[in-house]
């Protein structure tokens, strides 16, 4: 089958899609967007988290056909400004993750970045206060990390939240 949708601002079409494929598979294997990760492929680890029509979801749990006509934003779409990849300026959340040492193997990172971006959009981005630790933990509870013990991830989210609050003030 053919599936057409918008990803990171660009209209894309994938052909010869087997109906059993997930959105994650189509992104990774057919559209050259391997940033979303395939750690459990059953919605438990959050490594494949994307924005799906503006709401975060595990792309492994979305059948490819369900993406028809929808809007998807992946980790590849988080960097600010134009240009490709490392030529672009890192987004606030991306920058904070590298700076705070929240990245080790990095396999959970893309999903955590999308989920953190969403948390900040809903809080400081909407004019609210910087989220406290309990809120951060709750927001990221669906994203497994095996390397860090999460402490540096919390550091990164606090840093990004403060910076985003500072820039929007």
């Amino acid at each position, binding site marked *: 089958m053919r599936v057409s949708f918008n990803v990171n601002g660009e209209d894309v079409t994938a052909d010869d899609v*087997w109906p*059993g494929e997930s959105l994650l598979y189509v992104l*990774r294997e057919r559209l*050259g*967007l*391997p*940033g*979303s*990760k*395939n*750690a*459990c*492929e*059953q919605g*438990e*680890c959050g490594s494949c988290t994307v924005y799906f029509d503006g709401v975060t979801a595990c792309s492994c749990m979305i059948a490819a056909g369900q993406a028809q006509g929808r809007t998807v934003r*992946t*980790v*590849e779409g*988080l*960097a600010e400004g134009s240009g490709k*990849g*490392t030529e*672009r300026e*890192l987004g606030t959340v*991306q*920058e904070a*993750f*590298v*700076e*705070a*040492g929240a*990245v*080790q*193997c*990095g*396999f*959970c*990172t*893309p999903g955590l*970045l999308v989920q953190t971006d969403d948390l900040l959009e809903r809080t400081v981005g909407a004019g609210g206060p910087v989220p406290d630790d*309990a809120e*951060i*933990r*709750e927001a*990221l*509870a*669906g*994203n*497994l*990390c*095996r*390397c*860090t*013990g*999460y*402490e*540096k*991830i*919390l550091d990164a989210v606090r840093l990004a939240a403060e910076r985003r609050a500072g820039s929007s003030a």
Partner: protein
Amino acid sequence: MAATTRTVTDLTSTTKDGVGASPRRPDGTLKVTGEFAYSSDMWMEDMLWGATLRSPHPHAEILGIDITEALKVPGVHAVLTHEDVPGAKRYGLEHQDQPVLAIDKVRYKGEAVAVVAADHPETARRAMERIRVDYRVLEPVSDSRRAALDPDCPLVHEPGVLEEHPEYNQRGNRLRYQPVRTGAFSGVAGSAEREREVLERLRAEADVVVASEYEVGMQDQAFLGPESGMAVPAGDGGVDLYVATQWLHVDQRQIAPALGLPQEKVRLTLAGVGGAFGAREDLSMQIHACLLALRTGKPVKFVYNREESFYGHVHRHPAKMRYEHGARSDGTLLYATAEIIVDGGAYASATPAVVGVASSLGIGPYEVPNVLVDAYGVYTNNPPCGAMRGFGAVQACFAYESQMDRLAEELGMHPVDLRIRNAMSQGSRIITGQEIDMPLPMAEMLRRCRDLPMPPAREELADPADPRTLPGGVAGTTHGEGVVRGVGYGLGLKNLCFSEGFDDYSTARVRLEVVGGEPVVLVHTAAAEVGQGLVTVKGQIARTELGVEKVVIAPSDTQVGSAGSSSASRQSYMTGGAVRTACASVRAEVFALARERGVVPEGLDDTDLSLVGGKLVSATAGALVSLADLLGDSARGGTVVEHTREYHHRPTEMLDPKLGQGSSHTQFGMCVHRAVVDVDVELGLVKVVALDAVQDVGKVMHPQQLEGQIQGGSTQGLGLALMEEVQVRDGEIRNPSFTDYLIPTILDTPPMRIEVLEHPDPHSPYGLRGAGEPPTLSSTPAIVAAVRAATGRPLTHAPVRPEDIVGIEL
């Protein structure tokens, strides 16, 4: 050559981001933009997908395999069985006992039987369904204690299973038996009766005796990046493999013979590694992908899914242990005995080495004059077990620390005081007779850990009934009723680097040149960056040693010599040591060149010289010349200085087979944990409130990454304490998914305060000590001790299960 200037600025210039700083990971930007190429991200236009047909039985004879129908599936390019393996039919880390593809028998559920290459993963799956394998099912050997001790237990491997070692496995299912005997036990070793007599005498002499059985469950490394990679056939008849592994050269050494190719025709490049923790020490899809690529002439990609991953790699050995300690009334230990049985599963993997660690560190860092340890690693038809962070020391640590707490309770002593009473220190000898010839500030670490600030009591919280601070979390299962707090301590001694006579070297190639007027260092090793941050540390060492800020880390591949494994907390020591050694050779050549060119004043010797801030600097005469001027741009005929060096740690010895004596270890590391938990004793739920640690690392190479290692290791220990166990019944894994095998989430993980000590090891580069494993040992017993303190239950099984801690009268 430009004139050299000597100003105050020059003299005080330093090189940024060297050893001891916390520069950013060089791969960090790619990892946050989604562009970092992990092994599962490999993609080529004409690639095929590989898939593995696995045994549905833990133990069965193979009567026949029929692939005819599978080959007829459109889109299938190849179906291979053991008959298609052109070279060695078996491989393995220590014993070559594991078939590339099952031959006449399967020995565990999930063993690879056939592989398929097809144009789509679904095509490959459909083809696998059409492979017919006729099995005659056999009774599985599933009880590790029976495998170790019952001479009538059926054999998992028949004697003579290895053609090149006809004597192989003449000892029943025992893969390794390692006794250790000291003190009064050493004179009577070998006589069970006399050993019993000695034990009776010591029991009579002791004021207090505690004995218990302990179990540690099978833990999964649960790295997030699944086993994956791509093999690409090459024009010379060889193959290029892009794979996530821990040790490229040991893979190469196992793959090439199976393919019937010389090693140089099997070239490996490290693809991005999504965590390892020991699970990538053994091969998974490597040989299979290469076989299919060579057969089809096309690139072949494998990606295991999570369920397959549970069958596709070794786990932490589950252990059954019996311990007894006797002490005098003042807490002084008199004797200790231990029987440690680790279940190696169907194939050897690293089991013999795990037994070597479990036995030699079996009693921990305590002064005990009389010791009897019997450690066994056995074959069963359970899933194969091998390396996981902590490697045999984790299991023993849970038992000996539990024993120390029981003793403290019997004696009415504080658990920290009992440990200090019997603490080892520099100059102590562990039970193998090996002297700890480096600082071991155990008593200081215990005191510091006890003195760390406590988290606020529940009633001091702003809202003591906030469910987010309670066991059960936002599920709101309690408002605080039935919740009890407990505090526990744990510590562990871990050997660092490889042990028992292994020549555990690493190789580094370092090149210094001037590019565009700027000095640049290239560091090339085969070391596996698995997330730990070695890639950062290599650059820091080059900056510190060569005084050059711009460092390029070349991809890790087999075009340079072996770096050894990213295991045993060894890479900062070994590959760090190799980079430092190669840098020293480069630096010496730069000094010689400077003398040749007349830049160094007469009378200054090399100890007066250093490379700092891109310049050659004399301690007495100031800055002498910039590297840019001395070497000249390499593109315009300038000098390129390059050296490749191996680094070896001091030699170690095998343990002797009768008394378990010998200096088998390279280095020792220690971490001390204090855990604070809240337990809901009505529902059996635990919330870890704080998990604080004191660790001595000799020298902090990168403060931020070090904390990440300690916190990450502590959290894996938390998982083993409270939730992680691969459930195996009759050889079958019952929970091969992240739905049923739980690892700690951010809600399960507490704030972790870390205190780091730096007592340098005189034998290691910079005095550093491997840091990755020790916290994984000590956090488990600390948390279980805290749960015991809260519940009063003995808790002899890790992980603690909800049913172990419910039904308690408060």
